[in-house]
């Protein structure tokens, strides 16, 4: 169970969130642009200062450095270092100093294979497609096997079919790792496809998760205005 009761203030922007997410849940984070969806994820990951507390399985995590929190976060961009190979980028999830033994190399290869990147490991991010960059990021999430996965729209630049493939892969990884998923999305179809509940972020408040289908069938005013 992820529980939080926080207030985030940044340059006149203010967001309050008091909510709980059950373990294993898949939650979409939706709301108008600039409402604070990315900020909420950033605060959970430790990049945005917050007032209040965040607990995972009853233990406070808001005082931990980002790397020690029980979560993996995929940013909108810059998830891979451009001068390292795809293999090395994934391996960073296992050994941040890249000194891998044979067993660890095998684990990285297995993670690459699991996301459909066999034979791509030696290339650099600049030499592979957008979809393959997304897969590499997910391979690292798989390899780190943290119980919480945060996605800040890492696939926003991909076409609809490719994005759907990525989300299916996310679903698989979440199942495989038994992970809880929080993902920012603009697309109600994505939320319906993958998520059992939705956190609506609007008007300075992140609401507790509500079941996806009823919420989207009958959205609250702020979300309705945004969905159009």
């Amino acid at each position, binding site marked *: 169970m992820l529980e939080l009761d926080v207030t985030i203030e940044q340059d006149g922007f203010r967001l309050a969130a008091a909510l709980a997410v059950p373990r294993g849940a898949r939650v979409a984070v939706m709301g108008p642009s600039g409402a604070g969806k990315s900020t909420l994820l950033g605060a959970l*990951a*430790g*990049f945005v*200062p917050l007032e209040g507390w965040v607990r995972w399985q009853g233990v406070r995590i808001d005082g931990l*450095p*980002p*790397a*020690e929190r029980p979560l*993996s*976060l995929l*940013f909108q961009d*810059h*998830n891979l*270092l*451009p*001068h*390292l190979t795809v293999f090395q980028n994934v391996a*960073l*999830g296992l050994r*941040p*100093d*890249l000194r891998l033994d044979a067993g660890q190399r095998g684990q990285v290869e297995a993670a690459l294979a699991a996301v459909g990147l066999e034979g791509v490991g030696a290339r*650099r*991010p*600049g030499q592979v497609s957008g979809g393959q960059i997304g897969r590499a990021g997910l391979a690292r999430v798989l390899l780190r096997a943290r119980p919480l996965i945060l996605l800040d729209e890492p696939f926003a630049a991909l076409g609809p079919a490719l994005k759907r493939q990525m989300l299916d892969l996310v679903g698989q990884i979440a199942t495989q790792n038994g992970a809880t998923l929080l993902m920012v999305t603009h697309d109600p179809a994505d939320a319906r496809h993958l998520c059992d509940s939705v956190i609506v972020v609007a008007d300075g408040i992140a609401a507790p998760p509500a079941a996806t289908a009823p919420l989207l069938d009958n959205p609250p005013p702020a979300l309705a205005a945004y969905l159009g």
Partner: protein
Amino acid sequence: MRWRADPPLIRPAAALVAAVLVALNLGALVMVALRAEGGEGWQAADTAALRFTLVQAALSALVSVALAIPVARALARRRFAGRGALVALMGAPFILPVLVAVAGLLAIFGRNGIVNDFFGFLGFDPVSLYGLHGVVLAHVFLNLPLAVRLLLQGWARIPAEHHRLAAALGFGGWARFRHLEAPMLARVVPGVLAVVFLICLTSFAVALTLGGGPRATTLELAIWQAFRFDFDLGRAAMLAAVQAGLGFAALAALALVTRPEAALGGLDRVAPAPPGGLARAFDAVAIGAAGLFLLAPLGAVLARGLPRLASLPAPVWEAAGRSLIVAAASVVLLALMAAALTLAALRARWPEAVGMAALTASPLAIGTGLFIAVHPYADPAALALPVTALVNAAMALPFALRALIPAARRAEAEHGRLSLALGLSPGAHLRLVLWPRLRRPAGFALGLGAALSLGDLGVIALFSQPGSETLPMQMHALMGAFRMADAAGAAVLLMALAFGAFVGLERVIGGRHAGA
């Protein structure tokens, strides 16, 4: 970001570098101020030196920028075979030893140069290169390429979308200039003028070779003369104080005119075709004339000097060895200072400011201060080479930081969070995130530092005794003795060392495929 611990030594190291630089600049200022009584006080000749310093710097800046605008414009909008090479050539005079440039200009425009041969053929009197116009010509030769490159960046910052918009709205040449180019120039030109002005303000080697006398002496040259000819430390100190004050004032002015540039990058680089006809001919003339102006003097030096290279006298080779040692020491110092300040600049603003002002008091003002400080206790000549290495490193530091700090900040902005999320240690962060993005600018910076140090004729001229000359000093002595063929040979050697060191360090440190 609040989670990452700095590597433990960064802050003390940066503080130490800052202390050395402040001591070098302000300490020199204090020393010269204490000593600046001057037997006969401020003289008419000193006023003339001050006036000449300002006039030549202003003229050099104006002429360089005025000539650079059409060249940069032509290079920005034309694509032709050899364009890349020409833009690269624009970087060459910056690392070209000043004396080599002077030798080249003398070969073309000097009394026995090609231009005067042509004038003589036409029946005109020969034109002399010595005096204000010679000094300005040399400064333009050395700074025109820098101005072109800075302006070229300005043109590159006009988004391609704006050019398309101009085409879509049917802008003519004038409207294009008024709405796209003039606003850019208004932002960029003051900064370029200020940079060239600042560089020419501390001109020593050019004034030493092409100026001199009551009507063409810069303050730096006057400091040197007070030292070398009269050994009047009080007078040298007074002049140095004025020179340093001028430097601080000019730097403050530069900070005022160069506002931080808002990033306005276009999404792509495909601009519509440039205008043809007369504009095309004009661009061709601008590019051709600039290329000829920059290449002919270098060609002349090579033609005269290459045959003499093998038969250069032994002292020249010994001086070359000393120059290499000084340059190596200078590069090591530069690397240490730049590394400390760049890493510290990721957390704070002051290291950048300190580094950019590394040599605000001029080299000869600093040299005078050091001389006065050391003179009572030790033989300053013994310090000639170490002091030169240190001053050379400080000279190159602003350029190094200008290349390194933005790259480091970009790498940090793009990948700092990822590195934190993955828990990279400071060492792994440095090795995996920062260094791959920094090695190319680092290679450029250290190569530049080596070339500047090899070619520098400045503070060493104050300290050095016979037997401890560097290669530029040796070359100057040959020119002074009118051994022009040997001087040309030394010039070729100097040029080869400077370019070789630059290219070598850039390759070895920068790597061929560094960055991505």
